């Protein structure tokens, strides 16, 4: 039995936006896999909820005319993994969200919920950061476009106004074209776990596969929010594909991060993981791109 004060189930996006304008304090319920847990534990008990789960317009993946990949926020993790567009152009995103919890969570949990929840451990977040995702945010006043890089304001806090709902996640063509990615989720268990650390790398190599044209790397749980490691990216740009590449990425990545000590893991241990996962994810991404060490 869940302690909701009121629950609304709009039939259209317009209705949803209107309800959100009328009830700015209401929670937007997508798959519910975070909100129901917090409601049960009492943290969100007695809330008013607007369930958008029935809004199929907000579900699915497509390619727009300019090659941008558009992911609607209610797309479940399992549908993202199984989606042919994702599998063809950004397989690493499908692989990343396939590591969320277990099969049941992946069937109900949505990618929009995952990033709007604003936690640093979100499995989709580091890959979406590393691919320069752009968010479409709607309200009764219209649509706002925001780089995902600017979305996270702090732990559990995102740049969504009280009358707004996330309606789209876009990945521009230049971000994903000719790139190869690797996500490593480090957790104590192989399933039903949250990341102690997550690392997502994607690379574009030169035609002869000997030089790094572009490398992007982002982490979950390496700071209070998911973050890009820009020094590491800069240092890797133009680097030769050889064993020292991993050291270059890792030694710079640790300058970009700010993990904290919690009872779940110490800062020291997380730093070890940041260094080691940077190396392993870089190596794997480069190898997928055809690079040889």
């Amino acid at each position: 039995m869940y302690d909701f004060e009121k629950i609304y189930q709009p039939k259209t996006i317009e209705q949803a936006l209107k309800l959100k304008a009328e009830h700015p304090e209401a929670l937007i319920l997508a798959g519910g896999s975070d909100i129901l847990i917090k409601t049960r534990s009492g943290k969100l008990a007695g809330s008013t909820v607007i369930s958008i789960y029935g809004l199929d317009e907000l579900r699915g993946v497509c390619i727009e005319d300019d090659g941008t990949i558009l992911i609607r926020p209610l797309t479940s993790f399992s549908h993202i993994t199984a989606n042919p567009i994702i599998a063809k152009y950004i397989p690493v995103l499908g692989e990343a969200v396939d590591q969320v919890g277990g099969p049941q969570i992946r069937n109900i949990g949505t990618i929009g919920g995952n990033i709007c929840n604003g936690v640093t451990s979100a499995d989709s977040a580091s890959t979406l950061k590393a691919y320069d995702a752009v968010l479409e945010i709607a309200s009764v006043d219209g649509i706002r476009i925001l780089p995902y890089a600017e979305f996270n304001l702090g732990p559990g806090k995102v740049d969504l106004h009280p009358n707004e709902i996330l309606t789209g996640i876009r990945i521009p063509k230049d971000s994903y074209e000719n790139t190869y990615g690797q996500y490593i989720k480090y957790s104590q268990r192989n399933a039903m776990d949250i990341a102690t650390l997550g690392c997502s790398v994607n690379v574009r190599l030169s035609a002869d596969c000997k030089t790094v044209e572009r490398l992007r790397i982002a982490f979950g749980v390496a700071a209070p929010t998911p973050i890009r490691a820009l020094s590491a990216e800069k240092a890797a740009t133009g680097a030769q594909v050889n064993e020292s590449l991993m050291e270059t990425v890792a030694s710079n990545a640790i300058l970009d991060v700010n993990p904290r000590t919690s009872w779940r893991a110490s800062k020291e241990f997380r730093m070890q993981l940041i260094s080691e996962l940077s190396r392993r994810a870089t190596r794997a991404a480069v190898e997928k791109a055809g690079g040889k060490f």
Partner: protein
Amino acid sequence: MVVGKPVERVDAFDKVTGRAKYTADMFPENALIAKVLHSTIANGMVISFDLNDALKVPGVVKILTCFDVPDIQYPTPGHPWSTEKKHQDIADRKLLNTHVRFYGDDIAVVIAETELAAKRALDLIQVKYEEQKAVFTVADAMAPGAPLIHDEKPGNVIVHSNYEFGSFDSAITEQGLIKVEGTYHTQQVQHCHIENASSFAYMEGDRITVVSSTQIPHIVRRICTQALGCSFGSIRIIKPYIGGGFGNKQDALTEPLNAWLTTQVGGRCVGLFYTREETFVCTRTRHAMDFDITTYVRPDGSFAARRIVAYSNQGAYASHAHALVANAVNAFRMMYPVGAIKGDAYTVYTNIQTAGAMRAYGIPQIGFALEAHIDDIAARLKADRIALRQKNMMQLGYVDPGTTITCHSTGLQQCIDKGRKFIHWDEKAKQYEHQTGSVRHGIGMAIFCYKTGVYPISLETSACRMVLNQDGTVQLQMGATEIGQGADTVFSQMCADTVGIPLESVHVISTQDTDITPYDTGAYASRQTYVCGMAVKKTGLSLKRKILEFAAFMLHKDVSDLDLKDSWIVHTVSNEKLIALSDVAMEACYSLTNSHHIAAEETHHCSDNTYSFGACFADIDVDIPLCKIHVNNIINVHDSGTIINPLLATGQVHGGMSMGLGYGLLEQMLYDPKTGRTLDDNMLDYKLMTASDTPELNVQFVEPSDPTGPFGNKALGEPPVIPVAPAIRNALLNATGVAVDSIPLSPEHLFFEFKKAGLIK
């Protein structure tokens, strides 16, 4: 004959189709729900409550607090009662407690029409405390000036026991001995049974019925009478199917409070269903234990003298108290009963959640410490790890000087041989020498001995009833409980063979109801197949004799000429089929001249015990930079005497190995060091192994028939958990040279160990 056959579980169909009824399935509509208010301090006194806002919540029926409960302290552990005062369990808690002793203690209860109303009211209760300093570790609780947790135990030490066999002090004066010392720590873990602590209670007339998910219905009945100050006859406990217990439900959990709550609302039915978080915090756990071990060993590997000092963190209430660490230091002696042996054990109150019984009752703790220590000795002596064990381990005929428990049978050597061969020990040992690199391989092993029942420390008694139906089938009724381990199935197998009927003719009654069910202390230790198996055998023979006597009357033959085989009365010598059992049963029931309602009920008072044995062998990879252990291959080989049902036995070993892997690698209960609040009170943060973390679990048995077992059998239920953690720890030592002396071997723990050892910079 079906004993020894891999027959299907008798409850398999009902369980997989969802027909089997558990406590919550039987909870009536429109009953009331109770929710407990738990303390938010770890040590101190409740001064007052403000209930005004809470009472205004619609649907709230009644709120009861620690100031309302009977002024009675009662014990909770599921031990057979002792009529001798000095052996009685410690009565140290009330139904709700004014003196709060851990973060989560029960201080008040809301009874409401709905769960939501009860929860909302809980949030509105204001509590005023007088907080005192809390102590969470044994060292802090034993330190001078530590806060007093229970007035009855100044200094917080519940029991200090000791033993000495041979003279330790003179044994260590022998020339040429090598002294090896070690300190080992095991952590607090939880049982994680699927079904949370659950019960409901109602009154009929002046009597209280409690339906509960318990391993020990008859004992819970006794405890309820003690907690409420009422008579045995006024309490009735019903135990339906239960979703696991592993020792947590070998304790009175929600039942005494629940029994009292129904009396406070005019006997209306009240349910008390713990959440997973409450089950983590407010039930029982495995004791965290620390061991200081010293061994004086001769250069040839034989032990001259051994010393152990053990400290057990009991938490807030005594529950099973000292019995576990006493069991641990006894097993230290029994496993390697060589040379002079001296032991001390302390059980200490602290302000963490209460520890109690958990699968293998103190032995996984000593199993880890002792078997780690044996590998540490081998490393020091550069001795062969297996040979060192073989030189000193328990042999056939051993009589323990402390308990008189005798080694009636042992297949330990064959267990070691089989495991060694399976894991390719000798080849791997060579292959894994002198490794470098970031991923290294290792092999490790550990052995154990385990006593089957609780004799002679406690009473061992079991009763059984069999009733013959008109069709020649039999109802089998046990006081012993099915808790998922397969007891109903093996009892049915035993009944079938003893009476002389096929398995399909046995209808086991799974539910225990203390109004109806014969007495038994319940499912704990690894006693049921052994002790209660003896009761089945005795009752089966008694029923068979009564059937044959009636058949002899019908056939005008001497009863000594008759036998019962496969539901036929046969001639003992010729085996000629004389009359079908069903015909005898019909006539016995409906005879106009000589009706007999044939039934048998017998008690077996058990005055024996026996050891089971086993070994675990593990082959692991250690990814040093990621601080992770991967188990490549693992096997448990068990000597549990004759295996009654190989299918169930294998399942039992799988479950135990999984529990052992979690114990060794991941599981631990974590506390906020400031407040004592449990941090990982849920299945996300508490790292119970998932299926995808579990390697293929290999199981083999050796089956020396035990002369004391009813069917040559001995303990199997608990032992599989024991040797896994030390085998993995020893494989880690083999792989990396790093001797880790505490568990779990979790990534963060390994990180700091590897750093200390210079493997990680």
